């Protein structure tokens, strides 16, 4: 597992002004088929040696994400 992807998204109950702004822009540009946008962060980590899932989960959940307002998705498979 040389490459790990972590997606960080705002918890559903937290407002997402960035996603709202993108949605508004899409509407004004005539892309009406998109009805919702949430914006998060996407991290690509290069990992060396034995992959330790617990450590990666710890990194993702407590460092890459702000656990107060964000959830994470860990994709160990790489891309």
């Amino acid at each position, binding site marked *: 597992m040389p490459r790990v992807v972590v997606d960080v998204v705002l918890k559903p109950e937290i407002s997402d*002004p*960035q996603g*709202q*702004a*993108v949605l*508004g*822009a899409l509407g*004004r*540009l005539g892309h009406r088929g998109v009805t919702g946008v949430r*914006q998060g962060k996407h991290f690509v980590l290069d990992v060396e040696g034995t992959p330790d899932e617990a450590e990666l989960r710890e990194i993702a959940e407590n460092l890459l994400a702000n656990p107060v307002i964000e959830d994470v998705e860990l994709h160990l498979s790489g891309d």
Partner: protein
Amino acid sequence: MRIGVVTFPGSLDDVDAARAVRLAGGEVVPLWHADAELPAVDAVVLPGGFSYGDYLRAGAIAARQPLMRAVVDRAHAGMPVLGICNGFQVLCEAGLLPGALTRNSHLHFRNRDQALRVERADTAWTSSYAQGQTITVPVKNGEGRYVAADADLDRIEGEGRVVVRYAGGNPNGSSRDIAGVTSADGRVVGLMPHPEHAVEELTGPSVDGLGFFTSVLQGALSA
């Protein structure tokens, strides 16, 4: 001479840009982002701020507003356009200027009085300066790091498109100390520092910024 100053939702320095135009002797025409038509103006200033909150990318959403299409068309026809800070970001996003502006290398917003070297004194917006002159104006941004692929930077430099460079320290990690660039015809200029905040002794670190606005006015007179 009538100079349009555009207000986007989230524009902040539009009042300042307008004040600078007036102090330089120009007539200000307020422009609204949502209008499709550009009224009769001789030049346009895109001011600083956080248009659309700078959500997505700085300047990205503003660059796709109706008025910007008209500005792009007129710019292609030779109308002078100045983009300051967020306005510079808009011009890059709109494809009028090369490169892109990204998160500062130190990841902080930074506001300081900044020395700049004028590299081109022959654009529509810098003719009041002497080439090589050092001026001091405020810089204030969080996403002001000018970047492009190396080959593109070489081309930009080779074509003499760098208008101003940071001197005495690079405030945001911009490639090759680039603070501002111009279009091939020298009519469109974008820069991260804020000349409109250096137009009065009372409120600015200098009055060095006034030259940007007098340049375009004099250019129009002599044209």
